[in-house]
């Protein structure tokens, strides 16, 4: 199963141009949905205004080199989902699984559907498609049932679904049905194969077609927000937040208000983060 390109067998019953057209339509829906989202929610305007506000509050000029290093750091943080690590390692791991799984799965789908419809698919590509889908499913179900904040912190049932769940539920079900459909192909049971293909197409269409109503576009605006935040820190504006405290600085260490911390260790360890925020 893991070495087989599931789109080859599908192209025996459905013309490969239909499969390719479907993928193009899905890509257009994502692009169009994201643009609609930007215009409708005025998120671009919000970011631009925030950027201008940060520039006005800047305490010093940020050099070109510093800007580049901030951009690189933002990219590294994005690629490692570092921001999510601030609140929970398991959330960071689940996000990494779904993020890299989704990239591998989408890339492998596009290459297999466009490049290998009637020729032998390299095994590595089929492996990548299955592995990507599996990673998304594992990360997605983990998030859905255990990590989702409305479940873990608010105590709601994992089966209570709201609009915010549209993205994670359609994504997880889409890759899960993809795997089940690929498995059904190996069993030779046409009924199961058609049923799971139908469910796969349905959930995939919901995933890519619901961008304006789902959280799909967070993958575009979250990096922009992270960059704006880091640039604001670099320029000293820091969104009006206080300067970071340096307890080794004699002026801070010897100040009256810090007298009680004079002989205390520099690292006090974890406070409220010692426990998961789930005391509902």
């Amino acid at each position, binding site marked *: 199963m893991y070495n087989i390109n599931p789109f080859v067998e599908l192209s025996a019953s459905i013309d490969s141009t239909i499969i390719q057209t479907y993928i193009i339509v899905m890509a257009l829906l994502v692009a169009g949905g994201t643009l609609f989202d930007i215009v409708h929610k005025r998120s671009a305007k919000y970011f631009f205004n925030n950027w201008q506000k940060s520039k006005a509050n800047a305490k010093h000029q940020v050099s070109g080199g510093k800007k580049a290093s901030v951009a690189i750091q933002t990219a590294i943080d994005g690629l490692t989902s570092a*921001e999510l690590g601030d609140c929970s390692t398991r959330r960071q791991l689940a996000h990494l699984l779904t993020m890299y799984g989704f990239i591998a799965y989408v890339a492998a789908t596009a290459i297999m559907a466009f490049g290998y419809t009637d020729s032998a698919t390299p095994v590595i590509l089929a492996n990548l498609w299955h592995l990507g889908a599996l990673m998304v499913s594992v990360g997605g179900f983990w998030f859905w049932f255990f990590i989702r904040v409305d479940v873990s*912190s608010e105590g709601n049932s994992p089966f209570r679904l709201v*609009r915010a769940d549209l993205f994670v539920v359609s994504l997880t079900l889409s890759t899960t049905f993809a795997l089940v459909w690929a498995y059904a192909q190996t069993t030779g049971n046409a009924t199961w194969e058609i049923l799971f293909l139908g469910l796969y197409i349905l959930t995939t269409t919901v995933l890519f077609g619901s961008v304006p109503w789902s959280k799909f576009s967070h993958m575009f605006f979250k990096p922009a927000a992270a960059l704006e935040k880091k640039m604001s820190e670099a320029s000293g504006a820091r969104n009006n937040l*206080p300067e970071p*405290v340096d307890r080794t600085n004699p002026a801070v260490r010897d100040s009256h208000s810090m007298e009680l911390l004079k002989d205390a260790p520099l690292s006090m360890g974890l*406070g409220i983060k010692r426990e998961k925020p789930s005391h*509902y």
Partner: protein
Amino acid sequence: MPTFVYMTRCDGCGHCVDICPSDIMHIDKTNRRAYNIEPTHCWECFSCVKACPQNAIDVRGYADFSPLGHSVRVDRDEDKGTIAWSVKYRDGREKSFLSPITTKPWGSCTPNLKEVVGPTQEQRDGELLFNEPKYIRFDDGGLHTLESNGLTLKQGVYY
């Protein structure tokens, strides 16, 4: 000054939901981000503001006394054991405050109540609260007063 959440900075970790004593910080059904469901019931305790790891929560001043560009922001750094405040007035003045939030490493002085021997039946039937003589040091020379400690009450506020 009730709290509000910057949606683009919130990552929906749930710390504010968990810590809010009024149970008014909840998760939005559209974006899965935190929001204050009832600002008029906010005690303005700043618990959520201090707990937020992304500094995504801020306080909104009432328009009648703190309008036009004021800002009160706080950074609670548990690892350093400090809390820093930055207050910006509407006329542009800025004030900063820094204080400790603990003097010992977190969790190092948690009383191990599990190991404490429970009250006897006689203590249960008595009028004193559990461990009361010991905890108010009543069994160590009677009631401690300013007088018994050689202190006097001074007028005014001293720092």
